[in-house]
């Protein structure tokens, strides 16, 4: 991490100043090591806590959507007040720690044990390159975006390992499904951020955030999401991210109505909790990357709001995206596996490729006259909208509207 620039407001500089105060007295090689350890500890602590409360939030919001209260009984120890069940996550944690750890007799024990660990490890690895605020990026890498997706790619393996090692038919089916789904959605996911790299001209996350600095006309931020290709890329990214993190409506690997609990069937206790945690970590990491790539990173949307520290902006955007995830889970039905792959190959991938071409058109038109600058908006919007409509029509062709006869 770089030393804080002195021109920033105090709150903006606070984290770096605090860290420097703690480690400043150490000799140089030690200081970098301790700094890194502090960063790891902070990430684990903050995101661990976040995970705990997001689970609660999810249950609460789901309850709200489904017109029921959600968990509200767990009291805070010793003072015995409920506070809407705010201590529920800790109760869950204690529960999962104390439950029996069941391993099937025929299971591949090593892999069965390794799967949740690997999943969590790879999920955490992805946090390393996300810029959480001004000058707050744990590891400054030249090829950071590539690193992020390389580390993320390995999580698929863990799901497969879990499903295969359980030696359970449902789990194996889930593993196959997970593979098919992850392979299918890896492609649009990767293709959706290539335009950003193209426009920003870099693979470094901090540089990408820097490329989104400033405001047009003083109030429209230069975020990538506010361009036709950026908006399309963002939507494709979020859809693929939903699928990559096995979230509803793409949660076929753990579809409880078909596969009991998919690859999680034979897991219990703390291993199950680890899976749960990794899933949320994956979701958080992908949201963080979406923010970095499309939503201007830690930058504030309006000039006069800049006094709020950057890491708070990042956190706010993160929570908003997570809320979006939960909302989608609450409202969309699950897709069938064939619909899911067809959607990926016949809709998302072509659209992402067209979007790539769209970006090229955009950047070619950006160096010309003011008229071209203006014209590229409708042109690029049309380039992405027309295929969207056409592909959407083709995808839904032959699917008759459902008649609810007994409802």
């Amino acid at each position, binding site marked *: 991490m770089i030393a804080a620039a002195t021109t920033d407001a105090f709150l903006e500089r606070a984290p770096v100043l605090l860290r420097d105060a703690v480690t400043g007295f150490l000799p140089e090689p030690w200081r970098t090591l301790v700094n890194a350890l502090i960063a790891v500890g902070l990430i684990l602590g903050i995101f661990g806590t976040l995970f705990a409360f997001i689970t609660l939030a999810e249950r609460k919001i789901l309850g709200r959507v489904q017109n029921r209260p959600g968990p509200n009984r767990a009291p805070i120890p010793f003072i015995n007040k409920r506070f809407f069940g705010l201590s529920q996550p800790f109760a869950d944690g204690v529960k999962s720690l104390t439950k029996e750890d069941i391993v099937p007799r025929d299971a591949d024990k090593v*892999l069965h044990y390794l799967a949740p660990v690997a999943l969590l490890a790879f999920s955490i690895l992805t946090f390393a390159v996300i810029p959480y605020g001004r000058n707050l990026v744990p590891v400054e890498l030249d090829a950071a975006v590539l690193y992020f*997706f390389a580390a993320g790619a390995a999580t698929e393996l863990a799901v*497969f390992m879990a499903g295969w090692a359980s030696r359970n038919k449902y789990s194996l089916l889930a593993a196959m499904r997970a593979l098919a789904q992850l392979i299918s959605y890896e492609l649009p996911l990767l293709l959706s951020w290539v335009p950003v790299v193209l426009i920003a001209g870099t693979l470094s996350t901090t540089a990408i955030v820097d490329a989104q600095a400033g405001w047009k006309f003083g109030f429209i931020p230069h975020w990538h999401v506010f361009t036709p290709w950026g908006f399309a890329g963002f939507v494709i990214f979020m859809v693929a991210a939903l699928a990559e993190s096995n979230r509803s409506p793409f949660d076929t690997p753990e579809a409880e109505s078909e596969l009991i609990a998919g690859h999680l069937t034979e897991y219990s206790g703390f291993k199950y909790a680890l899976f749960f945690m990794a899933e949320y970590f994956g979701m958080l990491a992908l949201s963080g990357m979406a923010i970095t790539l499309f939503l201007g990173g830690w930058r504030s949307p309006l000039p006069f709001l800049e006094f709020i520290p950057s890491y708070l902006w990042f956190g706010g955007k993160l929570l908003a995206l997570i809320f979006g995830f939960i909302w989608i889970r609450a409202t969309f039905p699950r897709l069938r596996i064939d619909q899911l792959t067809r959607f990926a190959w016949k809709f998302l991938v072509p659209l992402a490729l067209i979007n790539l071409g769209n970006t090229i058109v955009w950047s070619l038109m950006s160096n010309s006259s003011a008229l071209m600058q203006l014209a590229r908006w409708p042109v690029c919007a049309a380039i992405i909208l027309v295929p969207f409509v056409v592909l959407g029509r083709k995808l839904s062709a032959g699917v008759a509207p459902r008649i609810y006869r007994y409802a």
Partner: protein
Amino acid sequence: MNAVLIVIALVTLGAAAVAMTLRNLIHSALLLIASWAGVAAFYLWAGAEFVAFAEILVYVGAVSMVVLFAVLLTRRSRADLTVTPDSAGRAISGFIAGGAVCGVLVGAIVATPMGVGSSPTPTVTVKQIGVQLMGTHAASLLIVGVLLTVALLGAIVIASADRTDDSEDTP
């Protein structure tokens, strides 16, 4: 410096060697992934950051998936695991051939004087790679793109079951 290299090499080789001897194909594939990760670590050690991530992305992220998928799709029964009489002979001849190649290669390497003791780790930024890819190697990049497209289309054609053909083949 060399110690790190030796550790990486030993881990990679160990994983690969065990993977090649295991009966359980899934275990082999997973160990090979570890081996590929070791190769990526070697790239990192050598300062080729981009290549390392690309290796992880392609091998661990994509190739391994396809391999696992193929293993699952072709899993038949325990009959595939039985040792056929010619297995032992093939294994022995394989070891002899491989060992001979290894001996020859290592002998050649050791016998060749290599003047380079240690030079500073070269750096190559992503930007340089991008410029090279789009400049000097633009034609190669295009060709590789075409190759990949054609290969994937071919893979789909080969692997997709042609249901109509079965009825026509039977006389």
